[in-house]
């Protein structure tokens, strides 16, 4: 999924704000009324420490739609189930390193054209049959199949040919790529790449048969479901006995369920600050922040008359005070990006960006024969930070003679009518993409997710060169060169990466979420 698993969650945000505010006023009053006042809670890192063995975790999630499925390759997948049910060849650690999953080891040829994965031989499917290399071949072909319409197909198809994937032994898979890619393995860590049994395309949608730590007990699209511990799991055994999922479309409904102790955790819900203080005031629940979980770019559409000129784009990049914007929009729960779209935790991150300099901004405008610039910036209630970001930018850019008019668009049609259509808008993505996917998927010429319509042959060639470079140090330099080219070109207006505020029960320990990954192994209930 392209960063917005919340796509179908159109809440009533004005109502949420009103009610959130009302609750924020009432709850502390009510709680202080009863003598057992809780410790002053603050938003912070999730609780860590020993978990009791066993227990059933109850998760509330926004349903994608009545057509959601357990097929990991599909754009309609119910993604909270995936990590519990399935495994991949490799996965990404929180620090961005590749770690083994179904593949014990992997290797690439000197020209980065041939990749060999050695698979574990001790893995069984939930239905008892054995996992083999044929399942891997089938899964990747299924992802590439046009009928699947998988979002990952666009990432892999430029260099993976479905007919050139072979299984020389029961536990070896060989990919013969059509163009070199030294980062190929990292692209198989995407959550659409969970491995499914060979021949299961027709049944996987509801069977959920995988090799993961949990087995499917029940599932209904946009309804409740459950998974139970897989005793035969090949990896570290999960702490929990079971996980129950329920679908609640309304954001306020999910928060209410948490506060009423009906669920322990609400997934895909970035709490607004009023709601977060309501949750914090409760003795049952708390708010954890997931560091830099969301990337908030402000795409300037290069194909529009407004932003075809790089100097104008650069003028905007220099025009706002990132400290101020981040403080106003996120109340400090963020990391300043200096217009670099790559998160600082990424292994190939380049510490470089366009800094706040309103005078430079004005001189860039002057170079274009402009003394000031009037623009509309679109926003919606789709995510709680979008409108505060637009308003903060509006205030901050005034000093650079850039006058933004904030246009509020309907959240329902925001991603059909505004995104990739209006010259300037606010949006967000989940972080956690491998760098090769991030730069190619969102900034490469002609990519279907290129939200700025950015097109620069030098940038594209640098990415190609990086892919073809097997030496890791050299490859890192090339990916960093690509970042610098993009930033200097005014290719990305990115004020900050924000933390996601997640509501969960105070009993839950070892909660961890990285990009699209939940840690379902270590999460559990604390001793007290």
């Amino acid at each position, binding site marked *: 999924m392209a960063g917005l698993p919340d796509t179908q969650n159109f809440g009533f945000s004005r109502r949420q704000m009103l009610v959130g505010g009302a609750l924020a006023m009432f709850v502390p009053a009510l709680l202080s009324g009863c003598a057992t006042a809780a410790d002053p809670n603050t938003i912070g890192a999730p609780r860590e420490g020993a978990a009791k063995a066993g227990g059933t975790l109850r998760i509330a999630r926004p349903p994608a739609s009545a057509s959601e499925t357990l097929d990991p390759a599909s754009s309609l997948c119910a993604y909270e189930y995936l990590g519990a049910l399935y495994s991949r060849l490799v996965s990404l650690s929180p620090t961005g390193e590749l770690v083994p999953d179904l593949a014990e080891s992997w290797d690439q040829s000197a020209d980065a054209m041939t990749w060999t994965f050695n698979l574990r031989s001790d893995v069984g499917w939930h239905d008892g049959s054995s996992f083999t290399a044929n399942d891997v071949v089938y899964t990747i072909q299924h992802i590439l199949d046009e009928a699947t319409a998988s979002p990952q197909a666009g990432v892999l198809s430029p260099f993976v040919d479905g007919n050139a994937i072979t299984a020389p032994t029961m536990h070896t898979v060989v990919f013969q790529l059509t163009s070199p890619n030294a980062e190929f393995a990292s692209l198989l860590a995407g959550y659409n790449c969970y491995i499914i049994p060979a021949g299961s395309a027709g049944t996987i949608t509801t069977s959920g048969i995988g090799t993961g730590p949990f087995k499917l007990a029940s599932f209904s699209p946009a309804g409740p479901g459950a998974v139970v511990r897989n005793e035969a799991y090949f990896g570290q055994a999960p702490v929990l006995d079971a996980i129950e999922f329920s679908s609640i479309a*309304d954001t306020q409904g999910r928060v209410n369920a948490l506060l009423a102790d009906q669920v322990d955790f609400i997934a895909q819900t970035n709490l607004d600050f009023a709601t977060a203080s309501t949750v914090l005031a409760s003795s049952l629940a708390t708010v954890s922040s997931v560091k830099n979980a969301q990337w908030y770019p402000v795409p300037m559409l290069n194909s529009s008359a407004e932003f075809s000129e790089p100097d104008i784009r650069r003028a905007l990049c220099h025009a706002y005070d990132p400290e101020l914007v981040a403080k106003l929009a996120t109340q400090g729960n963020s990391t300043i990006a200096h217009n670099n779209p790559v998160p600082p935790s990424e292994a190939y991150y380049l510490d470089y960006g366009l800094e706040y300099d309103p005078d430079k901004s004005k001189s860039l405008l002057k170079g274009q024969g402009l003394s000031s610039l009037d623009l509309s910036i679109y926003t919606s209630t789709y995510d709680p930070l979008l409108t505060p970001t637009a308003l903060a930018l509006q205030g901050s850019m005034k000093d650079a003679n850039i006058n933004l008019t904030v246009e509020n668009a309907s959240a329902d049609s925001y991603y059909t009518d505004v995104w990739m259509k209006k010259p300037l808008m606010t949006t967000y993505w989940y972080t956690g993409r491998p760098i090769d996917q991030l730069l190619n998927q969102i900034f490469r010429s002609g990519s279907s997710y290129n939200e700025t319509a950015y097109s620069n042959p030098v940038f594209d060639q640098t990415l190609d060169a990086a892919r073809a470079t097997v030496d890791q140090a050299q490859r890192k330099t090339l990916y960093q060169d690509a970042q610098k080219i993009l930033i200097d070109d005014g290719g990305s207006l990115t004020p900050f990466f924000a933390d996601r505020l997640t509501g969960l029960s105070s009993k839950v320990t070892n909660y961890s979420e990285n990009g699209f990954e939940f840690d379902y192994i270590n999460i559990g209930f604390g001793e007290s």
Partner: protein
Amino acid sequence: MRAAWSIFTVLLSTVLVFTAIQSLPGDTASRILGQNATPEAVATVRLQLGLDEPALSRFLSWLGGAAHGDFGTSLVSGRSVGEEVGGALVNTLLLASITIAIGVTIALVLGMVSGLMRDKKPDVIISTLALIGMSIPEFVVATLLVLVFSIYIPLFPAVVLAGQEATIAELLPSVWLPAAALICVLSAYVIRMMRTSVIDVAESEYVRTAVLKGNSTARIVFKHVLPSAMPPTLNVIAMNIAWLIGGVVVVESIFNYPGIGTLMIRSVQTQDLPTILLITVLSAFTFVICNLLADLGAFMLNPRLRYPRSAV
């Protein structure tokens, strides 16, 4: 004549809703695929769903099916629309019948007390509460109820966790808070209407005559005041019942209640036309029937309408 008009009303509402949905930006294909949709994927899904056919021919073919009781299949879930809406309707009827049974009883009694004791303490209290009930939006009432009765004093669940397939037994524990929120809104209107009617009737000459004749209060209230005060109130009740069955979107959505309202909001978001159209038909039909019943009820209660000639 009246039946023909009713059918016309229902038909007209489907035409209006069909046109409204057509004029919305995007379509089901882009809605269900969301932001992930590549143009090719959208085109494929559009073809699969038959969305590339002209709007008029799609509407006519739907109408043809509907005339034979076939309302088509949901564009999103692929299930029969009749089944989906039917399931949700049962859930909504459970909520509506509890709300109506409790709400209307309370409201009629309170409205009558209020009207009969005009400007005395009970009236002032009841009227003030009714005014508050009318002015506070139902989502605030719902949220306050959740705050008090499921978070502060954990008596009832805050939301329904079971999905659309929930059984009545599974829903029963969770039905009380949404019902209470709806009762607050519904009874406020009924109380106000009932109070006004009772006051009007109590001031009429025939009631004064009855008082002067020395009739007992009970006889005056039940024989003279109530039958005349009921008809205007019946209309308000009928409209409220139709509103309840047509789906109370906000309350159902806050409580995640798997009824018509939740189904409707989901279908509108995905522009699932067959589902929306069936809900429209159902909703329009309920309004028509409820109106009809209210008129019949008024007819039964009003001696002048019942015996038009002898009354003159």
